[in-house]
């Protein structure tokens, strides 16, 4: 999907949602920026976006969300607001085919962004041209101490799945648990499970147990597929001593593990095993509310 097509799709949503006079303003700005405006024009357009358009939810329909997925696989703007869509149109509109210039401009915007802009700019990661150039920036977002910034990268965003190396990926998943964020909105959790992450997560579970603190049932999702003996022992411990939701999670994790020891464990909890084999309840449902 080309940059222009993404701009058109976003623009349609903004214009549908915007007050009439603001829709005109939005279209003028986008046109001006596409035809090669100055950095100052871009800053002003970004600065006035909320003042002109407000920040109400886009409230996209299932058809519109499907169009988003078609335009850009993995793109999930289901909880985006109008100012976010408009600001990303402005940024995309400035691309004139010069990768270095686009990256420098984007970096400058990130450096002087307010918190709402940061969330927006990170949510835009899957839409930017030259995706290979934004990895360091995306990792910076995943290091943020501000949970909404972290989640703008980690949640409902295909960019980390596609671009993060194993170390970056693993730390993003671990950090999500560490800051009390959810795992299930992370795209590619199952596809990118790996032995190293499995070990990190089990170590983390032990830390939590040592401190008598609860362990998120979601943690076991990324443990199951690569569980070794020690990890299977951990899951046995959860099956024996965990709460109802923890036990469901352990059964789901064991179902994803091909080791004979995992099968044996599951055989001891036939009801849980049957439900887990049927995928019930799913991982998203197991995440605490």
């Amino acid at each position, binding site marked *: 999907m080309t940059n222009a097509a993404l701009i058109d799709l976003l623009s349609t949503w903004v214009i549908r949602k915007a007050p009439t006079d603001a829709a005109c303003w939005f279209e003028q700005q986008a046109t001006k920026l596409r035809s090669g405006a100055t950095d100052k024009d871009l800053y002003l357009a970004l600065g006035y976006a909320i003042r002109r358009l407000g920040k109400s939810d886009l409230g996209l329909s299932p058809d519109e969300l499907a169009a988003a997925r078609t335009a850009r696989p993995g793109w999930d703007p289901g*909880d985006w607001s109008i100012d976010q869509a408009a600001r990303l149109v402005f940024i995309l509109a400035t691309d004139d085919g010069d990768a270095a210039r686009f990256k420098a401009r984007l970096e400058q915007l990130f450096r002087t*962004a307010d918190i709402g802009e940061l969330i927006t700019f990170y949510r835009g990661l899957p839409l930017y041209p030259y995706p290979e150039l934004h990895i360091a920036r995306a990792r910076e977002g995943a290091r943020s101490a501000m949970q909404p910034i972290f989640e703008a990268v980690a949640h409902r965003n295909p960019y980390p799945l596609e671009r993060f190396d194993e170390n970056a990926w693993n730390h993003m998943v671990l950090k999500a648990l560490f800051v009390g964020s959810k795992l299930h909105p992370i795209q590619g959790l199952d596809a990118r499970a790996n032995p190293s992450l499995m070990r990190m997560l089990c170590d983390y579970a032990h830390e939590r147990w040592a401190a008598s603190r609860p362990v998120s049932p979601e943690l076991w999702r990324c443990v199951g597929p690569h569980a070794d003996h020690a990890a299977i022992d951990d899951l046995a411990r959860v099956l024996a001593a965990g709460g109802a939701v923890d036990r469901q999670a352990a059964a789901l994790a064991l179902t994803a593990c091909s080791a004979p020891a995992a099968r044996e464990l599951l055989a001891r909890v036939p009801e849980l095993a049957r439900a887990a084999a049927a995928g019930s309840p799913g991982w998203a449902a197991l995440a605490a509310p």
Partner: protein
Amino acid sequence: MFVDSHTHMISRTTDDYERMAAAGVMACIEPAFWLGQPRTHVGTYIDYLSMICGFERFRAGQFGLRHYCTVGLNSKEANNEELADAVMEILPRYALKEGVVAIGEIGYDEQTALEDKYYRLQLELAKELALPVMVHTPHRDKRQGTLRSMAVALEHKLDPSWVVIDHNNEETVRDVLDRGFWAAFSIYPFTKMGNERMVDIVKTYGAERIFCDSACDWGVSDPLAVPKTAELMRRAQIAEDVIRKVTYDNPLAAYGKSGQINEQDWLNPPSIDQRTLYMGNSVLRGGQAPRIDEVPRGVDDNLHIA
């Protein structure tokens, strides 16, 4: 409900946020100022402005407070010309950020030529961008500095109803009110205004264009100064609507001219903010009215600020 229109929250602890929220402070405004020692590079200034538009806003939201800020080059650092010029160049980038409610705090410290130059330039910037101005009046030679701040603002054709003169005392308030400016009072132990004096000011001058703030920062200061002063006024039989004006309505009206602060921000926040930025205030979920104790908790023993 209270609005504290002058707080340097980057210097305060989470305990302060918790106590402010418990005492009913719904929103705070963080004016850009110096940091107790002068910055030497524009880069640190950029990071500072990003901090007060970014991480500090997030931090406040965690405790259920809405956080706003002002941006500007303060009078002390205006005396470093190289830094000042560089800051003036980047200020327009920040002036239109969400939640920037004024250009400030600007004005005079020692009333030097450089302070005067950058004060005037920033008054023009505020006019151009239709933003209110927060004026920091000097600690020394205060009355003269205050009069000069106002004269220069009028010379630059600013509407005085768009300009807040802050850190007033008994010696400056009459002149400020007579000229049509907002008169803010920083309730501050030892140096600026005690809150008992504030009660007397309100008794004398009423609530028209007057409000108080805590100016809490890295020094000895009290982030509960506004709720405590409200309680003192209550005990002094000052009418509830007067108290409300001095501690809530007036700062909202003054800085609300920016279009960047509105009580709906905390009474009925946009859903995108509820999902992302404005956490820890479960009382506001589901469109409920906030339930705030009228008398601040845990401050009774320590109500007077000298």
